[in-house]
């Protein structure tokens, strides 16, 4: 399953900022850029002699396996959390 929600939480000097990024709606909003992005990726693949289908498959797998990733950093009064669900 592709990531549904990316949460970024930042705390500095007691002030907490949270950013929730809903991935699917964001992709829908950015979908008009899909065609130029695919064209640019295709040209890049051809330039670097990488098979486009293999590259697409590998990138898709990477995206599919992202949910569950969690990175947390805390030092004193500063903290950063990135969570992918």
């Amino acid at each position, binding site marked *: 399953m592709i990531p549904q929600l990316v949460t970024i939480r930042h705390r500095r000097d007691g002030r907490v900022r949270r950013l929730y990024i809903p991935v699917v709606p964001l992709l829908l909003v950015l979908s008009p850029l899909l065609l130029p992005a695919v064209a640019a990726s295709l040209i890049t693949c051809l330039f670097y*002699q990488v098979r486009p289908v293999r*590259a697409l498959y*590998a990138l898709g*797998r*990477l995206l*599919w*396996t992202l949910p569950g*990733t969690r*990175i947390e950093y805390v*030092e004193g009064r500063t903290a950063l959390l990135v969570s992918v669900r």
Partner: protein
Amino acid sequence: MNEQRRQILEMLAEGKITADEAERLITALERSQPEPPPAGATGPKTRPRYLRVLVTWVDDTVGGEPGRINVRVPLQLLRAGVRLATLVPPQALTRANDALSRSGVPIDLTQLKPQDLEELVEHLEEVDIDLDEPSSTVKVFCE
């Protein structure tokens, strides 16, 4: 009491983490560990799904404030990552080999095959690194 819970309590007792942080860690631990099967039940051993890197330290230069890095990465993501690494074009691998040789690391990346990388990730499931120093601890394990 399992090993990870005991270590959290030890860090709390040593003042490396606060009670609030210890509670959060234990809650995360309970959430990540399923209930043990009932006695007598013989099911297949569950395979680990995540690679965890847990680093805690106390920085004496900033008034002994504790620090923590807690990373959880799905093992499937590592597998997908190594697949992506196999797409690196040969000329880039040659340049990487040259750079590694200059740095004194004579590894030939062109000899790495996808199946080797898969095997590497498979064996990563058995990794358990535990470093304990007076002011810091490092744990790398799969869960």
